[in-house]
């Protein structure tokens, strides 16, 4: 066996599926957020694999940008979760079903 592009794509796809499952099935807001992180990481892995096997470094620069944006997104999202928790005293998605605070 030679670990080629297809193998990395399969790993990335499965990791994305796991993240999606976490987002849909878990009820804790923070674990849902971790599922989002897993999906972002799966996309990053696929980008790096394509960059490696197509002989093109632009994919890796893209991953660099994605990691930076993901860090900013996590900071803002967690601040929103903390603000929401202060208002509603819960971080459970079923208790956060209304649009009004």
């Amino acid at each position: 066996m030679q670990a080629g592009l297809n193998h990395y794509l399969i790993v990335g796809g499965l990791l994305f599926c796991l993240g999606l499952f976490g987002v849909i099935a878990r009820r804790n807001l923070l674990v849902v957020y971790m599922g989002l992180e897993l999906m972002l990481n799966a996309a990053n892995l696929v980008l790096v694999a394509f960059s490696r096997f197509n002989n093109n470094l632009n994919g890796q620069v893209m991953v660099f940008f994605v990691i930076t944006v993901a860090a900013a997104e996590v900071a803002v999202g967690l601040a929103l979760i903390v603000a929401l928790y202060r208002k509603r005293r819960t971080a459970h998605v079923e208790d956060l079903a209304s649009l009004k605070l």
Partner: protein
Amino acid sequence: MPAFTDLLFLAFAGLTLLFGFLCVANPLSRNPVTSAMFLVLTIVSLAGLYVLLHAFFLAAVQILVYAGAVMVLFLFVIMLLDLGEEDRRKLNRVALISGTAAVLGLAGVLVRALWSAKGAAATGATLVEGNTAPLGRILFQSYVLPFEILSILLLVALVGVILLSKKELK
């Protein structure tokens, strides 16, 4: 006979998927701290895969930014919020079934797409190296403007987080 890198690929890929599974669907514990710890392990194994793909700089950045900064932020928030009562709740049947169905559907689509594209993959010739030198050259020659926009985005995120974290949101 499989090469050593292939064995490493199998090990890191298996560990990534195992830890990812334990992060989102741990059968033993539904504590968010456990999930966060398994997310750290997933990220470290992914960095191993990046090294196998010769993306050394990205592997280092992955460890520093994700396992260092992002996960510490997650753990801070988990401990700040005191989420102890969460694991006593029942699992939602509808969410579990719809989640499984959606995931199986997506996996089917992905496998089918990979299957039909099977002939196109796997060149084994001269391949790029993700060292800092070529990456930095590309980043500061072709991607200077996105790079600067990114710094503004970080500033916006910084200001927004400070505003959101103030005591009164009026």
